[in-house]
């Protein structure tokens, strides 16, 4: 029986996985855009982004644009690597039946 890979618990959460996937396709994104795409509540989204930030998977930048606060998130190299490893592990777990 081959060793089955472990799934990274930080990446595995549905919302955190969605956030990392979204951020992997863009250079950076606003909190409001992430909220609109995931349709998550402010509190839940903020909490999950904080977990990703604490794990070093996303970086946060806060600034003011036209006097309005703007919070920008971008995926870090560690985050991208974690997502890649997660997808690899997922495909391994699902076996060869899943397309590359």
């Amino acid at each position, binding site marked *: 029986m081959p060793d089955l890979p472990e799934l990274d618990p930080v990446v595995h*959460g549905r*919302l955190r996985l969605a956030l990392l996937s979204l*951020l992997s*396709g863009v*250079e950076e994104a606003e909190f409001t855009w992430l909220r609109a795409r995931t349709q*998550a509540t402010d509190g839940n989204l903020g909490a999950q982004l904080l977990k990703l930030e604490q794990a070093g998977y996303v970086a946060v930048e806060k600034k003011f644009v036209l006097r309005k606060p703007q919070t920008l998130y971008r995926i870090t190299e560690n985050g991208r690597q974690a997502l890649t490893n997660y997808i690899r592990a997922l495909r391994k777990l699902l076996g060869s039946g*899943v397309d590359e």
Partner: protein
Amino acid sequence: MADDTRELRDRLSIIESMIAEGQRTTESWGSTFVLWGLAYYVAIAWSRWGHTVWAWPVTISIAAVLTIVLAFSKPGGHPRTTLGRAIGSIWIALGISMFLLFFAAGLTGRLTDRHLFLAVMSAILGMANGASALILRWKVQLGCAAVWWAAAIATCFGSDAQSIIVFLVAIFLCQIVFGFYGMIANTQGRKRQAPLHA
């Protein structure tokens, strides 16, 4: 076991749909295409019946301001993507080129050859749509580019009235219809989304 597999497949589909969501850029610009289509109609009507050199520069300036206002008023902000920047650059460069060319030509009274004016405008719009379509690999937009290129040729050969009709039809197809198509595609994409929870 079957539940576990379903759960894992669900995770894969989240990844795929979210990556695709992040890459979606042009569809949300449908309203801008419609706005510019209407602006061209206004400018044509104004210059034809108003007989003023200011028709094009003023209409284009107002449309440019409205485009900026529209861009900033969209809810949810915009993600910064390499693809988005590439497509945005094409349209910004097109806007600047058209504005400078037609503003200068209009002011100096050199917009006397209507055939050439419509042909140049059609060719420029064909170039921008073509470049965008090739980057996005979007056949519908490539179709728009083909219509503009055909209009550029047709306006050179047709009579005054025929050239205007060709140009109006091209605007209708490539700005109004294509714009509404983009808006509908964008709305349908949003409807398919379901809320995600931790």
